[in-house]
């Protein structure tokens, strides 16, 4: 079920590539915006770079979460998915996995480029990448619960941000402090363990919550 759902969502995504590319475009546009707004002073930017990149990844992820279930709700696929005899756990996980590939894994690969624009020292790049790889699954998984709750609601975007940003705070805190500690020459193992732990907990719990939320959303629409 996971593989089937993954392949289907991946195909859909590849056929509407703008949706896949949008979060990445947002990441680079907003990074440039920050660099210009801060006057382009390299030293100042280097200090702020981890915070800016992590916050932008969070927001970019939010952007793509909004569309996670919307099309499936509109064309009725979601209802069929919930009617299957098999529990939708694996299918939900498959959808989130595709979303994560685009706005988690791709971010982790490309965020260092954005960080270099902001003059982050190269020595801190591995910490940024590792933090993003460990932390973004939690963003996508917890995000899926919020997306499932707000799918089909008017003004869902702002509501989604209001629901999710407080819940994403720990990931942001640990992710940024991992990069800062690495820059300061202190080890950041604790933060990486934390990020991995949050993601692992989200992986086991969030699909259940997302399924329950989808049932609520589908029943009322």
């Amino acid at each position, binding site marked *: 079920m996971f593989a089937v759902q993954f392949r289907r969502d991946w195909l859909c995504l590849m056929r509407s590539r703008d949706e896949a590319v949008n979060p990445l475009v947002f990441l680079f546009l907003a990074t440039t915006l920050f660099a210009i707004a801060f006057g382009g002073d390299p030293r100042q930017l280097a200090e702020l770079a981890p915070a800016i990149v992590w916050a932008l990844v969070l927001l970019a992820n939010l952007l793509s979460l909004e569309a996670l279930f919307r099309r499936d709700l509109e064309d009725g696929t979601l209802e069929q998915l919930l009617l299957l005899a098999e529990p939708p756990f694996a299918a939900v996980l498959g959808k989130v996995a595709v979303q994560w590939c685009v706005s988690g894994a791709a971010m982790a690969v490309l965020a260092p480029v954005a960080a270099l624009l902001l003059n982050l020292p190269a020595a801190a790049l591995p910490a940024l990448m590792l933090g993003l790889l460990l932390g973004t699954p939690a963003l996508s998984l*917890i995000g899926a*619960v919020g997306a499932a709750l707000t799918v089909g609601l008017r003004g869902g975007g702002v509501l989604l941000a209001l*629901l999710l940003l*407080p819940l994403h*705070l720990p990931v942001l805190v640990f992710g940024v402090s991992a990069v800062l500690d690495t820059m300061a020459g202190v080890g950041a193992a604790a933060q990486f363990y934390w990020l991995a732990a949050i993601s692992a907990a989200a992986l086991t719990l969030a699909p259940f919550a997302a399924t329950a939320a989808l049932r609520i959303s589908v029943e009322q629409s």
Partner: protein
Amino acid sequence: MTLKQFWHRLGSPKWFFHMSGPWQGAFAVLAVLLLLTGMTWGLAFAPPDYQQGNSFRIIYVHVPAAVLAQSVYLTLGVAGVLLLVWRMKMAQLVLENLVGFGAWMTALALFTGAVWGKPTWGTWWVFDGRTTSTLVLLFLYFGLYALRQAIPSREAAGRACALLAVVGVINIPVIKYSVEWWTTLHQGATFKLTEAPAMPASMWAPLLVNVLGAYCLFAANLIAKLRTAILRQEPGAAWVRDWAAGEVRP
């Protein structure tokens, strides 16, 4: 009556309405007595702090509000579980009627904290561990409120809010420890279950009275709102008409 029976009956709005009349009065009287005693004692008779002088007295409002802010969210989480698992009708009413109170208590805790922070820390606001986690708590309340407003069907809104409250309760400890670890300027909790407070008894005793009074206020407020909500929900029911006519048949 066994606990199981009690639990079962608590799910019935009618039974709750008949039973809770006296409870509401008792909690309201207790709240007024405790809060009046605690406030007068704390504001007029407790000794001033050796460092902060009289400005520390805002603790008598700040701590009860902050304690309630967290307790109310926990209550919402418990109600969320009850609604999702057992579809208890009263749990839905709790979820609908408690969010505003919790948000106000959180706002009060933040406001009194800011008023106290200005003379003591020299600033209205610092992004420190405990202030930040309280601010996040306020956003969680806003989220619950906004989600309920956004969903037109009452039943779906109740269950969606229940789910969100449960997710929030699971997340609160993580949020709390992440931001506390991040940076901390705020002093530790005044009351801990495991050790005696560092304050003298003449200072913490009125605080304890105020905290208990605040919990009674919480209970009285919740019961009053639930009773109103029950009446509004079943305006035409036979038992409501009987009750309004003065003959109570529990």
